[in-house]
C-alpha cells in the first residue's frame, strides 16, 4: 500500500502529497530496555515511545506511528516487515498490547433488555459477559470481520462471522450481515 498521489496544481506544476509532508528518514532504531519500555531514536536521542497503528483494521502491519510521551512523532514505520528481526519483535510486542482486543470464539447467549443487550461469549482470552447499547450495532471492519464495543469501551473482535458455530451465527444473525 502506498500513499496516493494527490495532484495539487500550483502554477502548473504537480506537487505530490509526499513532497508536502516529506520528512527525511534517518536511521530508525528500536529496542526494548530493562525498564520494560520500547525506546526509539530517529537520528536524535533515544526516547521511550508508544506505538500507534494508523490503520489498525485495514493495514495492521503498515504505517505504525511511534510517539514519545509528549505526543511527538519520533518516526513512522511504513512496513513492519522491513524492520530487522529484533526491532520487529520489539515493535510487535508493543503492538500486541496497544492493539489488543478481545476475540470472540463463541457466542453463548444474547439477552435483550430495554436499553442494553447482554452478551455471554467465550473469547480467546476467556469467558466474558458484556453489555452493548440496544441501538449500538457491531461495526463492520474495512478488512472484513466485525468489532463489538461494549458500554465500558472494550472491543470484541470476530475475524470471520461465517466461521463461527451455527448457534453463534444464529444469535448474531439479527446484528450482523
Amino acid at each position, binding site marked *: 500500500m502506498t500513499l496516493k498521489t494527490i495532484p495539487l496544481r500550483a502554477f502548473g506544476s504537480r506537487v505530490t502529497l509526499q513532497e508536502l509532508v516529506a520528512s527525511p528518514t534517518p536511521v530508525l532504531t528500536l529496542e526494548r*530496555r*530493562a*525498564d*520494560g*519500555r520500547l525506546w526509539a531514536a530517529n537520528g536524535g536521542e533515544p526516547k521511550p515511545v*508508544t506505538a500507534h497503528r494508523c490503520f*489498525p483494521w485495514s493495514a495492521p502491519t503498515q504505517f505504525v506511528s511511534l510517539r514519545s*510521551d509528549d505526543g511527538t512523532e519520533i518516526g513512522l514505520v511504513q512496513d513492519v516487515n522491513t524492520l530487522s528481526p529484533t526491532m520487529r519483535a520489539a515493535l510487535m510486542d508493543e503492538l*500486541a*498490547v*496497544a*492493539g*489488543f*482486543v*478481545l476475540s470472540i470464539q463463541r457466542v453463548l447467549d444474547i439477552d*435483550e*433488555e*430495554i*436499553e*442494553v443487550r*447482554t452478551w455471554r461469549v467465550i*473469547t480467546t*482470552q*476467556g*469467558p*466474558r*459477559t458484556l*453489555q452493548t*447499547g440496544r*441501538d449500538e*450495532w457491531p461495526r463492520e471492519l474495512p478488512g472484513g470481520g466485525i468489532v463489538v464495543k*461494549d*458500554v*465500558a*469501551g*472494550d*472491543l470484541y473482535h470476530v475475524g470471520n462471522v461465517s466461521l463461527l458455530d451455527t448457534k453463534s451465527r444464529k444469535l448474531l*444473525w*439479527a*446484528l450482523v450481515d
Partner: protein
Amino acid sequence: MSAKHLELDRKVIDRYTDQPSIMPMEVRRFIEDSWGGMPVQLYACADLDESMSLCERWVAVGPEHVGVAWQSADSRWKVRTFPRVLVRQVHEIPGLSCTVVAIRGTPGAPPLATLRYTQRQRRAMEAVMFLIREGETVDLHPDGSVAADVEYARHVAGPIKEAQAMVAANDVAVLRRLLGYLKPYRSRVAIGMTAAAFVTALSLVPPYLAGFLIDRVIRPVQDGGASADAVATLAWVAVGAMAVVMVIRQLAGWIRLRLMSFLGEYVARDLRSELYEHLQRLSLSFYSRKKTGSLITRVSSDTDRLWEFLALGVVDVSLAVVMLIGLGTVLISLDWRLGLLMTIPVPFLCLLIFLHGRRMARLFTRAWRKWSRLNDVLSDTIPGMRVVKAFNQETREKARFNERNADATRNFTSIHRAWTAFWPSLMFVIHSMTVLVWVFAVPRLIGADGQAPVLSAGTFVSFLLYMTMFIAPVEIVGQMARVVNRATTSAHRIFEVLDTEPEIVDVAEPVQLHPLQGRVTFDNVTFSYDGIRSVLHNVSFDVQPGEMIGLVGPSGGGKTTIASLLARFYDPKAGAVLVDGVDLRRVDTGHYRKQVGMVLQDPHLFHGTILENIRYGVPDAEVERIIEAAKAANAHDFVCRLPHGYDTMVGERGQNLSGGERQRISIARAILSDPRILILDEATSSVDTETEARIQEAMDRLIARRTVFAIAHRLSTLRRASRLFVIESGRITECGTHAELLANPKSMYRRLYSMQQEIQHAV
C-alpha cells in the same frame, strides 16, 4: 446511603459481569496482613495477565503500601507489596482494549509493578493510580472499611448503570409499587374491574342460550314433539334474555374501557408531575450523570407506556386468564371428552404465540439496524449537501442510499413474510381442532352402533360457539410476558429518578440572607466531582461586596467549579463557602439563588416571547422596568427592529437570534432580577468584536454595585476587574490587579496576556 449504593452496585456487577463484586475477603485479609494490619484504602481489579488472558488480579493501596495479589498455578493467593515512598512515577499507556500501567521506582530499572486491564476496570484503576500518585490530597470516606468496596463497585457498575436504568431490579416489587399508584382511585378500580369481570361472565351466557333454544324449543317443534304455541313464550324469553345480556355486556364494556382509560391517564399524570417535581429538586450533579434525552423520554414516553399498561394491560391480562379458565371449565362440564380435546392444546397455542413474539423481536432488531443504516445516509448527506456537491459525489451517494434502501426493504418484507405466515397457520391449527371436534362429535350426535345419540345438537352448538371465544384470550396470554416486561421497565426507569435523593438539601431552619451584602469567602475549599480526583484544592479567598473578580487560567483548571460552588449547585467536600459570613450550607437555597445572577457562555432562552424570557426571574415585573433593563443591556434597539418586537417567539422553534442577541437578552434578564452576586461565565467568548463591544458596554452597566465573578478567556474583557485570580489545576496560583500581575515577569497572567496581544496585532 453508601451502603445502599454498594448493595445495588454489587447486584449489577454480579448480574452483568463475571468478576467479583468486591475484593474477596480472603484476598483483602491476606494483603492487610502483609502490611502489618494496615487497611486497604482503595483497590481495583487488573483483569489481564502477561499473556493477555483474562484473569483476576488485585491491586490495593493502603496508607503506606501498594499491594498486588494474584493466584498462582495451585490457585493459592500470592501478594507482592512495596512501600508507597518508593513510587516515583505511575505511567499509563492506553491501548484499544488494554491499558498498561507501570508503577515505577528507580528510573531505568524494571517497574515495581506492571498491570494490564480492560476498559471495564479503567475507572476503578484510575482512582487507585490517582491515590498512589497524589495520595495526600485525596479525601477518603470517613467509614474507611467500606469505602474501598463502595468506590470499586461504583466504578465497575458505572458504565452499565449509565447505559440502562433498569439494572438488577426485582420485577415483582416494581410491579407492586406501580399498582400502588392506583390506590387513590380505589373505588374506580373496583368498579372497572367488576365491570370487566361482568363482561367476561356475561359473554359466556349467549352461547348457552343458543344451545338452550335449539334443544328446548327448535328441536321439539321441528320433531313435532311440541306445538309452536306452547314453546313460543319460552323462545321469546330466551331471545329477550340474549338481547338483555348483549346490552348489559356492551354497557359494562363501555364503563370498563372508559373508567380504566381515564384511570390510566390519571396515574400517568400523577407520575409525570411527581417525576417533574422531583427533577426540579435534584441537584445538578444528577444531570451531569444522565443524558438529557433519556430524562425527557422518562417523563414523556415511559409514563405514556404505563397508561397503556394500566388502562388496558392489567385488565386484559388478568381477565384473559380468567376467561381461559372459565371457558375450559364450561367446555369440560358440557362434554368432558370434547372439552379436553379443546383445552389441552391451549397452553401450546400460548407458547407458540410467545415464541413467535420472540422470533419477531429478532426480525425487528435486524430491520431496525437496517433502518438506522438508511437513516445514517440521510443524516450524513442532507446536512452535508454542500460537501457532496463540492466533491461531485451525488452519484455515489445515490447508490449508497439505494443499496441501503433495498436492504432495509428486504428485511421489512421478511418481517411481513413471518407474520403473514404465522397468523393464518395459527388459525389453521385452531380450525383443525374444530374439525377434530366434529370428527369426534358426529358419532355421538347421530348415535353409533345402534345406540341413541348421547350429545344433543343444542349442547354441541353451544360448544362450537364457545370454541370461537378461545382465540382472543390465547393471543393476550401469549403476549403477556412482553406487556408486563415493557411496563416494569418503564416503571423502573421512572422509579430510579424518584428514588434519587437530591444532594443539596436545606437544613431544618435555613438562614435567609436579607439583605444580601455580597461578601464572598472561600475557606479552604476542596471539591471533587467523583469523590477521588479533586478539582479544587484548599482554595481560600475573601471578596468584599462590590468587588469584581476576574477568574483566568487554562480550561479544566477549576474556574467554572468555583462559580458552581458559589451558586450552590454543589457543596464543597471540605472547607466552606461563606456569603456575608454565613456558610452556604446553612442558608435557604431558593432565597439565596434569587439574589445570584448568572450570564453563561451560551445563554439558554426558553420557548416563549422575549418579554417572558427577560422577566423569567421576576415574573411580575412591570413593562417599563423590562424596557429599562433591555436598554441597559443594549437589547432594546434590536428587539424593536424585530417585526414582533418584545412579543417575538424565541427558544425552540422560535425566531433565530444570533449568539450576541441571545446574550444581551440574558443580560437584560440578569439586570432585571437585580442580583447582589453576579457570575459571568465566558459571557463574551462566542461573539464578534463589534457585538462584544456592545455586550461589554451592557455588562459594565450590569456589574455596577454588585459582587462579580467573571470567567473569561479574552483578558481584555476583564480590564475593570478589581482583582484577578489565576486558577491552575485547582489552585489559585496568582492573585492581584491587572497591573500587579503584569509587573511580575514570571507570571502566567503576563504570558497569557502578551500571547493574546500578539494574536490581536497579527489580526
